[in-house]
């Protein structure tokens, strides 16, 4: 057979809640009413934080800030699947992830306020610091998973990143490593279709991002990233597979960055208001509300109550953030190394 087909592949897509809030019952993850309401609250919390952070930035009380508007479901839905004990590698636009994990909210304000002390994760929570250098944290995720394997521990590893990150060499090297060693990593890409001003079509000619996993010998799946339950289900399955030795999974959450890239950006320079408006229709929070409403778990009063609660929690975090005394100049020497050199000690004294 001189010309033959060597191999065929396909890429799946998962959706559970449609834009009207109707769910595919067969695919519904097994979540209680309380859990569903908790998820709703986490979406609200994330959105409330986001709005407040934008306001604080405008007032000069924090620095440049990357809004997560529109991506809350991808973050909260996936993070809610974590069982605890995982090692987590965020990029820089995952506030919803941090909240779902119980990361102290005031520390995020602190970090975006230009104080690195905000990045010290609470003991017991293995989340790496925000990684600004796009995609470069992915090898850490692979290495950590390899370490867990070597130690014979069933730790799973989760890494978050954007569509832009898929173009980096480190994405490739990390995915390849994960494939070769069948590592327990769940790679979660929030494909928000933009990397600053670069649209997905200029980032890659690949039809989907999910299919990139084929190059590394493991599965990729695309989920509707504005469908919290689809994200959740896919993450949970990928985590189970990881823990049971099934190797890595790549989950592409197709979503949309509804805001500017950061407060330093003006997205109207490079995309149309129509495009943004179309995606506002597909707001993941709205969709989840419709879904909850259909199940009798949501009404306007309840929403108002929860919004108030989220507001209160964020207010409190802002108060705590603003009460933190500024770092002392000497603190920039702390943690450079376990022990300072004689020269560094001398520099600190000046």
């Amino acid at each position: 057979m001189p010309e033959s087909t060597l191999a065929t592949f396909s890429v799946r897509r998962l959706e559970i809640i449609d834009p009207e809030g109707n769910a595919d019952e067969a695919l519904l993850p097994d979540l209680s009413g309380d859990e569903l309401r908790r998820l709703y609250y986490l979406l609200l919390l994330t959105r409330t934080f986001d709005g407040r952070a934008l306001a604080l930035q405008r007032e000069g009380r924090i620095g440049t800030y990357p809004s997560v508007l529109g991506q809350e479901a991808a973050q909260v839905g996936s993070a809610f699947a974590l069982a605890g004990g995982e090692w987590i590698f965020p990029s820089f636009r995952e506030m919803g992830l941090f909240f779902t994990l119980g990361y102290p909210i005031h520390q995020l304000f602190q970090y975006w306020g230009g104080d690195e002390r905000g990045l010290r994760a609470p003991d017991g929570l293995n989340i790496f610091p925000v990684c600004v250098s796009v995609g470069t944290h992915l090898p850490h995720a692979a290495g950590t998973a390899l370490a867990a394997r070597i130690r014979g521990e069933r730790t799973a590893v989760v890494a978050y990143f954007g569509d832009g990150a898929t173009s980096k060499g480190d994405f490739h090297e990390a995915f390849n490593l994960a494939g070769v060693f069948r590592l327990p990593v769940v790679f979660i890409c929030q494909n928000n279709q933009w990397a600053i001003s670069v649209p997905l079509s200029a980032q890659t000619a690949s039809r989907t991002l999910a299919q990139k996993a084929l190059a590394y010998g493991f599965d990729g799946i695309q989920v509707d990233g504005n469908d919290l339950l689809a994200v959740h289900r896919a993450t949970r399955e990928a985590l189970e597979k990881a823990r049971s030795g099934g190797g890595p999974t790549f989950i592409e959450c197709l979503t949309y960055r509804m805001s500017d890239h950061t407060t330093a950006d003006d997205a109207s320079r490079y995309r149309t208001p129509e495009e943004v408006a179309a995606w506002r229709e597909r707001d993941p929070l709205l969709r989840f509300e419709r879904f909850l409403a259909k199940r009798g778990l949501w009404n306007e009063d309840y929403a108002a109550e929860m919004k108030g609660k989220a507001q209160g929690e964020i207010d409190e975090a802002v108060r705590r953030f603003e009460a933190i005394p500024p770092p002392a100049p000497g603190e920039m020497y702390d943690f450079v190394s376990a022990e300072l050199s004689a020269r560094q000690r001398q520099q600190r004294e000046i």
Partner: protein
Amino acid sequence: MPQLNMVQAINLALREEMARDDRVVVLGEDVGRDGGVFRVTEGLFEEFGAARVIDTPLSESAIVGAAVGMAAYGLRPVAEIQFMGFIYAAMDQLFAHAARIRSRSRGRFTAPLVVRTPYGAGIKAPELHEESTEAFFCHMPGIKVVVPSGPYSAKGLLLAAIRDPDPVLFLEPTRLYRMVKEEVPEGEYTLPLGKARIVRAGGAVTVVAWGSMLQRTLKAVEGYDAEVIDPQTLSPFDWETLLASVKKTGRLVVVHEAPRTCGLGAEIAATAAEEAILHLRGPVLRVAGPDVPVPLARLVDHYLPSPERIRGALDEVLRY
């Protein structure tokens, strides 16, 4: 003559050079429709089109690597790395390839390219947005390193860099982007690479500073009989100008924001200690960043050499 800030001056240089020479192309992340995150390439996409103002995927190594291929083919690529902290991913392409293709091919292929990148601290940005690791690149034979210190020199040096037959790393002091305006002539003028500029004449001490530290140094030396040198090109360094000044003043202070150890200040001090020691009356002092990663906004003012520290060094060296 128009009063321009550095962003505008660089933009003007790019626009004029692209109009003059159709081999000049711009590539990088967000340099196209967006006009660059600092607006340095604003309007170029509209004027020269997508073929010559190229938004690349998010791939620093490929940006520099592609520029090597483009330059070898005969273009004059001007690549942007969005912040200096992201150039480390392209070190291999810069050092193993851009800097060596002329040598590896024994002159058959060359890399007349420019890599522009915002550099330096003090803009209240996240990690890796405020790096100043010029010394790495000054240790790479085959590549030139240029730092303008104002709008006028930015334009003249950039034009020279684009026309240079070899790769040039062009470091743009981010803090200065919009800080000062200067008269910047339209039309072409180049400032020669490898030539320092004596910004202020003086007799008692030579002070060398570049990028955003030059401004600060000029303020700090007020009232001192200091000769201030702006190297403009960090590699190859203009040793002639430096040594002539040191031989005259007998004293040398170097100011830079990069961490002290193995910063470019070391090379400058070492060269003085090697070639002008008999003229030195006192120690060669370096006022530099400490040996720590650049801290975030809340501490960065304590990281950067302050006017007080610069004056402290002057006072100390003038005691001899």
